């Protein structure tokens, strides 16, 4: 049984068709890349899985649970975490606290317990220790007590990954993790993703434009154009697919002089 099953998903914003009849599956443990030109609907699909958008049709199942029947805050407890294309951090909190926010779905304690403080001390210590562990595995531990505001873009992207890992996800959605990184950083990120996949036994769904990285780390690539899937398969297969080449480079002119 696949871990994530996207079946015939369609999203329309007024007259604009963002996704049309999109179907694909991801198996447990895979690194799957979602590629395609801008406007292909990749981020839209992420937002459907996170329940930020409601699709007009289709179904999304995770470990055989129908996601479309759940409100957005019930997605993280199932084991789905994500990062954002344009960063969604909390500037008012320190790096450490930003990461700890990610553990919300794995911890308990409401307002009353919080006000009394002592019922939560133990959990709070454990959660901070774990956040420090994840931060140091991403080489961010020296920034733990700094406010998020003002840190470099690539660092902020890694903080988002740390926050997502705090949710102990089975499926990690990463929206353009390599954008804005230097060449060296991209290579390193590719290694980090593979390493995290192994260490945390993750399944990864990745939106990425950086083809070198995509082809290097993915087990499976889904290619989208204008809200539709145009190809799916192993990286090598996809690279030679004529439709994919056409989507990226344009159609060859048939009757050129």
């Amino acid at each position: 049984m696949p871990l994530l099953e996207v079946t015939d998903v369609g999203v329309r914003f007024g007259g604009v068709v963002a996704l049309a009849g999109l179907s694909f599956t991801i198996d447990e443990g895979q690194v799957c890349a979602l590629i395609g030109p801008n406007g292909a609907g990749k981020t839209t699909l992420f937002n459907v899985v996170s329940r930020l958008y409601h699709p007009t049709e289709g179904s999304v199942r995770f470990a055989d649970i129908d996601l479309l029947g759940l409100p957005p805050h019930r997605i993280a407890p199932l084991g789905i975490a994500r990062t954002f294309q344009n960063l969604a951090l909390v500037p008012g909190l320190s790096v450490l606290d930003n990461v700890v926010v990610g553990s919300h779905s794995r911890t308990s304690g409401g307002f009353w317990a919080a006000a009394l403080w002592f019922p939560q001390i133990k959990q709070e210590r454990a959660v901070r220790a774990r956040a420090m562990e994840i931060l140091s595995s991403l080489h961010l531990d020296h920034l733990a007590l700094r406010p998020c505001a003002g840190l470099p873009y690539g660092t902020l992207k890694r903080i988002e990954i740390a926050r997502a890992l705090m949710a102990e996800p089975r499926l990690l959605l990463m929206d353009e993790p390599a954008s804005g990184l230097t060449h060296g950083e991209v290579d390193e990120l590719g290694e980090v993703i593979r390493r995290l996949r192994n260490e945390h036994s993750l399944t990864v769904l990745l939106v990425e434009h950086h083809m070198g990285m995509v082809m290097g780390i993915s087990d499976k690539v889904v290619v989208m154009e204008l809200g539709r899937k145009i190809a799916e398969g192993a990286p090598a297969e996809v690279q030679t697919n004529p439709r994919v080449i056409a989507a990226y480079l344009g159609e060859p002119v048939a009757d050129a002089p």
Partner: protein
Amino acid sequence: MTSSSPAKSLGARRWVPLIALAAVAVVCLALPQVLSSYWTDTITTWIPLAVAALGLNLLTGYNGQISVGHGALFGVGAYTTALILNEWHWPFLVTVVASAVVCFVAGVVIGLPALRIKGLYLALVTLAVATLFPQILEQFSDTTGGSAGLGITNRELNRRGVMTDRSIRFEPPDLALLSADDAKASSQWRYYIFLLVAAICFLLVRNLVNSRAGRSIIAIRDNETAAEVSGVNVAAAKVFTFGISAALAGIGGSLSALELARVSSGTFTLVLSLNLLVAVVVGGTPSIAGPAIGAVFLGFFTNVITPEFPEDVKPLTPLILGVLLVVLMLAAPGGIVGMYRQLQARLAARRAISQTAISQVP
């Protein structure tokens, strides 16, 4: 544990706020010992404002929901206290808790529609609540006493053995700490009770904002999507924050009713709501000490500085306060606490620079 290095650098300077807190506590405890009854009563009126401002700060500073209507919630707390005491003569502290519960419910009722409106629109709707509240009180003047007010009294036997209504008062216990003069002892005792209630409120809110729930409150303010995707039930957290914030305003109102032994519609106008906002902003937001500092600033201005103005300047008092606020906001946009934090950051930066300089000496 890997966290040792940042944790240590945090721990090294931990004693600074602790000493500051101890100093503030000593001053607060000593004040009624050195001040006259009049001044003790005056500074006692600042405490309810501080508690209500704390509530507003939780909502506006930490959660990002603007309320210009907390004066009305303060009023709900005050009237709840007045009506309970007049009808049922409950113990004072029980009445304070009951007022908090009533205001919590009122806050949830306002907080539910607030889920749909944000920013300026929410400010406008709560502004309407603040403006309407005194009118509503006058509409039901049979119960509320309208603008003439409602005394909070106890039926008691007087010296001649006749049942009369007597204003409530705090019966001081027989403690060496308190003055031998009964009236003064009553003022002191009331001050200490208020201080205790306020200290508990500040402690609970401090714990709250430093916890899992507090992180989600702040995350909602800065990035609702991030909070939601991390599993925070945003709607529930927002409504609950509104409720707690309102409960704190209600505790403030309840304390103020207990001190004045009287409630009247003229007290809970828009001006009160705005004053609470001023206390929050001047003190510095988001912070725990901010509302207390802001309330003291406001009280100091109203009760200590303003009476010193010459007669012909007095009508200009609101203008002077206004100009003062503008200047203060220009000089310290983060309020008084913000000013302190900036200073701290500057010192830390200077220390870091001098340390690198030392380490680079060949």
